[in-house]
């Protein structure tokens, strides 16, 4: 499935420059150390973390996009860093749990 299709189906807010990509799966964690050891390239990463170091972890393993859940406030510096490293940042008011369910429902989990 393509990222654009997921953004549309889940009504996600696009917070950075957007590059459409193939999505290989979903990884849910609030731990950067989990992401750097277990997430896969092309995954969508769902987290409530919004500190700019999420970009360092996402970029390392080529995460396709980060969805920041629960309507978390996202600092401007996180968005700036994401744009610099071509990491797509998306926002959602849904909880991580609900987002996980929706992603599963549309068939990509």
């Amino acid at each position, binding site marked *: 499935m393509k990222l654009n299709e997921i953004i549309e189906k889940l009504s996600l807010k696009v917070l950075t420059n957007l590059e459409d990509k193939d999505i290989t799966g979903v990884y849910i964690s609030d731990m950067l150390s989990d992401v750097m050891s277990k997430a896969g390239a092309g995954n969508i990463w769902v987290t409530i*973390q919004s500190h700019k*170091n999420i970009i360092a972890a996402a970029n390392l393993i080529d995460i396709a996009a980060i969805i920041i859940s629960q309507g978390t406030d996202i600092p401007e510096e996180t968005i700036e*860093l994401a744009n610099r490293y071509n990491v797509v940042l998306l926002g959602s008011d849904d909880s991580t749990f609900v987002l996980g369910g929706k992603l599963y429902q549309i068939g990509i989990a």
Partner: protein
Amino acid sequence: MQTQKCKHQWEMVNTNPGFILTEACHKCSQVSTYFSREDNPPFEEYRDGEHFWNVMASAQSVRFDLKCKLCNTLVTFDELSSLLLCTGCKKDCDVYRLMEKYSGKRIWFYVAFGFKPYADKLMLSDEKIKILEDYYNQRRDSTNSSIKIVSFEMIDDPDSCAGEFIIDSSMLLLAPPEKK
């Protein structure tokens, strides 16, 4: 250790969650960092020879080794404390200069940090750093971008680097982080 003919295909093995503890000695101000599997760091000051250590911060982290799926070569990464994304914070830094040389090629620079005090602890060899870089590039879809990992020893004053550490320090912070 190296089987010359094998085109190693690395996978992460022996992953162990734990904590990177930062301690400072109140006598000499030396800072020491180390990895601990325990989630109950010593909160009381303790003496170790000349030093009187106090825990300053604790960050969740993960230790791992890399193993080649083809030839079973195992490489340990006990010397690695964390990886940092270089954000080009200082124009006169050698890492920044190297990054500039590659600019436009979508190569992202990461810096492998060792444990403190740097002078006393074993540092990752260049060979291991290259293996770590190969591992992450194999794991990525490297068709339109790749990463390069260099040693923190390229940075004149690693403590003043303002890049982004991949570390879960916000989770269990005991004290304010060191000033960047």
